């Protein structure tokens, strides 16, 4: 019977160290630690995120895929800047960099935009890191241009599928839509070329998720991701605070879900009501703590940092 932890004792101690430092970092910077439910009656409608439903209740309950909605309700309630260390759950995600249950640090900054949040993230990671860190920033568009000489604004779906066919042989490209092609190229072709800590920002509108559209360029959303050597560590936004726009995106998600034969979820009306009551400009980000530990300790697989995998 193998009862031993999946992670080594050194990794377990390192996790404790970074959690201590994260708390002290935010405590000294005026950010309030909060706690929100892991189990709730609403969930994320995002087409690419699969929720785990929990049986045993009269109405459906779900393990949360992210604490985002609850934390935004706290922001609308006037909590000011907040942070949380919690677990999130995604059905069917398993592999070298994925586990269905994982740890997140999520924080929101009142009055910040996404670039200010990137600045703070650099400071946090430098604090946690055992080595000197340097960071670069590049827009999504420039990244595709730089690595693949591909203009995401001009390219047609047919051309994009040709790129996929050439760069990732053995893919049935005919069944991929525009964003799926971009996801494939980013994950398989571009990410392996990325080095060190790199922020990618200004995502195409079709991948806005819960980010605000840029005022001066409405083709892109104020969304960013942080990578280390091509491993995705964090995703953040200048938050969408407009309730009507948010409702429209939820409805789009559910329509896309219906089309793909995926379950549709009730829209989180409490979040929309909170946005309607007024949410000031803010930026928020979620950082995967298991992967951050992997990167800080130079480990290859998420199993090496999870205390137990089952």
């Amino acid at each position, binding site marked *: 019977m193998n009862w031993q932890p999946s992670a080594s004792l050194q990794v377990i101690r390192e996790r404790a160290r970074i959690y201590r430092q994260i708390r002290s970092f935010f405590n000294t910077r005026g950010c309030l630690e909060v706690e929100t439910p892991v189990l709730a009656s609403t969930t994320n409608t*995002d087409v*690419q*995120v699969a929720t785990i439903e929990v049986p045993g209740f009269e109405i459906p309950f779900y393990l949360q895929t992210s604490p985002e909605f609850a934390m935004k309700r706290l922001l609308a309630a006037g909590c000011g800047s907040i942070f949380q260390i919690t677990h999130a759950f995604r059905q*069917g*995600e*398993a*592999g*070298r*960099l*994925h586990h269905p249950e994982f740890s997140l640090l999520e924080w929101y900054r009142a009055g910040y935009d996404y670039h200010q949040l990137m600045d703070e993230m650099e400071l946090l990671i430098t604090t946690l890191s055992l080595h000197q860190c340097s960071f670069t920033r590049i827009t999504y568009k420039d990244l595709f241009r730089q690595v693949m000489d591909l203009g995401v604004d001009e390219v047609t779906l047919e051309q994009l599928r040709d790129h996929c066919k050439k760069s*990732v*042989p*053995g*893919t*049935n490209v005919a*069944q*991929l839509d525009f*964003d*799926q092609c*971009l*996801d*494939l190229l*980013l*994950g*398989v072709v571009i990410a392996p070329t990325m080095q060190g800590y790199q922020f990618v920002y200004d995502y195409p509108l079709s*991948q806005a*998720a819960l980010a605000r559209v840029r005022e001066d360029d409405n083709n892109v959303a104020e969304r960013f*991701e942080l990578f280390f050597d091509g491993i*995705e560590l964090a*995703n953040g936004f200048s938050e969408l605070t407009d309730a009507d726009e948010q409702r429209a995106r939820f409805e789009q998600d559910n329509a896309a879900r219906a089309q793909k034969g995926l379950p549709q979820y009730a829209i989180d009306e409490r979040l929309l009501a909170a946005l309607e009551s007024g949410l000031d400009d803010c930026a928020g980000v979620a950082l995967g703590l298991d992967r951050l530990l992997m990167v800080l300790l130079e480990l290859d697989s998420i199993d090496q940092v999870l205390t137990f995998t089952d």
Partner: protein
Amino acid sequence: MASYSTNEFRSGLKIMLDGDPCAIIENEFVKPGKGQAFNRVKIRNLKTGRVLDKTFKSGDSVDAADVIDTEMQYLYNDGEFWHFMDPQSYEQQAADANAVGDARQWLKAQDNCEVTLYNGSPIGVTPPNFVELEISDTDPGLKGDTAQGGTKPATLETGAVVKVPLFLEIGELVKVDTRSGEYMSRVKK
């Protein structure tokens, strides 16, 4: 026909691809947090032995291949086919040179092998990990040279050629690892 979803992919799984039975060697899950997930797999075509890369959208499903690995006893070679028998049902199967492949050099009558059947016919043969075979030809042994590390080629009764220590003689029995083709030890008759 049975099918598998990408989330059931694991190494060893047998699936149909472009009309041929294949075995998954490696499966890698690639997913951006807010984007489409993909399974990138390395696959061996069980008919040709060729290894190829395939990328599936996660959630896609593929047909299962009617492939089973079954323990059978090797009987004899008639010049064209290698004959195997199921020790329970006594049912016999004839495998051609393509199906037997490199395994042929380790096949000795009565040894148990793993025969891969596709739609009921052999497409692959895996010899036991260890076989004990007689040396049918080698240079004369050097008496007293049991401690030195030198080796010489020896032809075994099945035709395989392996490197053996210098002191071994024609007619002696040796244990060989068929996966590496390496000599393991001398076997006392």
